[in-house]
């Protein structure tokens, strides 16, 4: 039997009019009950579903906005990080250059100081050697002079020196 013949008798409608009446009546009753009772529930369910979908959509939109904001923040942070990194690198280069300059200046100053100290020490050593030499020459000369003087200090010279001294003391009054 073809599914289109729902009456089971080979026709589209049953032959019994009461069956049609009762069937129709039952149909309308059921339809009425469905419209009256289940309709609002279905409508409510559809409305609720729509609201949930809308809420979900709103939430998704909000989350998307938040995600985009976060993305923008991250991008900004990344940009800031790049700038910070660039700044740090620049600063590090500047510091390194300054340290290098300081080290070079200090090394040059140390070298100058070492050179000056060496020059001063050489000069001091030279002066000391000259002083030692002068003292030795002086000692030898004075020793020789003393010997010569001593050899020539006879009694008459001694008396002459004493008389000269007495005269000088008397003259200075």
């Amino acid at each position, binding site marked *: 039997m073809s599914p289109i013949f729902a009456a089971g008798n080979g026709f589209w409608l049953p032959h019994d009019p009461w069956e049609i009446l009762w069937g129709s009546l039952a149909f309308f009753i059921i339809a009425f009950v469905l419209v009256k009772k289940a309709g609002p529930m279905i409508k409510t369910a559809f409305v609720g579903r729509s609201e949930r979908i809308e809420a979900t959509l709103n939430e998704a939109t909000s989350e998307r906005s938040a995600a985009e904001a976060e993305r923008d923040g991250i991008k900004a942070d990344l940009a800031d990080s790049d700038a910070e990194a660039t700044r740090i690198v620049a600063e590090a280069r500047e510091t390194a250059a300054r340290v290098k300059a300081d080290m070079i200046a200090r090394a040059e100053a140390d070298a100058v100081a070492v050179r000056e100290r060496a020059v001063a020490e050489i000069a001091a050593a030279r002066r000391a050697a000259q002083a030692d030499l002068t003292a030795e020459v002086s000692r030898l000369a*004075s020793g020789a002079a003393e010997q010569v003087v001593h050899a020539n200090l006879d009694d008459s010279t*001694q008396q002459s*020196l*004493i008389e000269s*001294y*007495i005269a*000088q*003391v*008397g003259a200075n009054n």
Partner: protein
Amino acid sequence: MSDTRITAYADALVALARAEGATSEVEDELFRFARALEGSDELRGTLADAGVPAARRIQIVEDLLGGRAGATTTSIVSLIVANGRVGELSQIVDEFVARSAGGRGEAVAEVRSAVALSDEQQRRLAEALTSRTGRPVTVRNVVDPTVLGGVVTQIGDTLLDGSVRTRLNQLRDAF
């Protein structure tokens, strides 16, 4: 030795010399002995040696001064030696001479020379110093070979140096 003790010894010696009436003679003899003692480390060491009996040290003093100094001078030196004050004998004598001369209103000039000054030279030098200082000066001559030549006079805090030694030192320092 403290200044107080040196002063006490000097005062005692002044009183003793005055009592004996031989102040000038004792001054001169003590001064000469003190200078001789300064010039002889051996004599100074012997007289200061506590290991040598005091009687022996006094005997040495008497042997040295006998016939060359008066009894008062010999007794004074013996006293100082017996008391173990040989190390301070020069200071005591210098103080004694200064006080004794000061008592007469005089100043004492210690005159060092390589050869001894004659009495005439000492007199003329004393006159020159008296004129220079404005007060009577007694000259005490010390023969000091290290002077080489000329004279060095110490009178109070004043030094009048006319020695050849100093001239040579100045010559050496001028180099």
